[in-house]
């Protein structure tokens, strides 16, 4: 099984490079185009949350991204050293409300849950978070 890690600067300009790394790994793992896009979007939403919320768009922080081919798909592990944040604590997005009442909360985390087969979060002792996303081959 192939496993590769890259450390990226923890800023919004890294999002494209992170996506390229994840998409290439997903292709190598044999995911179809729809599943690759789902993974790309979930990882982008996760990293955007880290950069904007855990790091507050400040400082010389890093995001470590590991892509690992597994038997039935791909596992992506994203590590940061920012504020502890459990996605389960995020506000739920509003769905089906009228346009005027719509507020931009919780959509990224909701999308991750809907698009991925597994989403697991853990705190790193001493600071930081580990987010694990699993996308399996569609049958």
């Amino acid at each position, binding site marked *: 099984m192939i496993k590769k890690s890259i450390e990226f600067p923890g800023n919004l300009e890294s999002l494209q490079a992170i996506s390229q790394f994840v998409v290439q790994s997903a292709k190598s793992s044999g995911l179809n185009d729809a599943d690759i*896009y789902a993974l790309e*979007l979930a990882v982008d939403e996760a990293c955007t949350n880290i950069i904007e919320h855990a790091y507050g768009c400040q400082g010389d922080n890093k995001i470590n991204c590991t892509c690992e081919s597994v038997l039935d798909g791909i596992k992506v592990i994203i590590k940061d050293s920012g504020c502890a944040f459990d996605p389960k604590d995020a506000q739920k997005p509003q769905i089906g409300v009228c346009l005027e009442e719509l507020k931009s909360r919780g*959509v990224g985390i909701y999308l991750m849950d*809907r698009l991925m087969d597994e989403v697991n979060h853990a705190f790193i002792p001493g600071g930081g978070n580990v987010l694990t996303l699993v996308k399996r081959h569609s049958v």
Partner: protein
Amino acid sequence: MEYTITPHKRCNVITLVGRVDGSTAPSVESALKMVLAENMYNIVIDMTDVDFMSSAGWWVLIETQKECKKSNKGEVVLVNVKEKIRSSLNLVGMDTYFKMFDDVIDAVGSF
């Protein structure tokens, strides 16, 4: 991410090219604000050449739609949204806030 703005008689067409994520969504926002600053509220967004759009991009479109629809001043409509992007919009119900067209001419003609 690049954009062009093409004025028409009853609307403006904004053509986006590339990837819209947290780092490029502010460029899209700038383009839309430029149009709104001219009191032009009928906007066609051509997404034929957009291969990726995260929620950061959607929120820019949503906030612009709110502004345009306020007091029925106008509307944002979308053209050629790729199926993979449309599917993710559907997941969070955001597709319901926009009319979608397959062709720029039809979208322009709707105003």
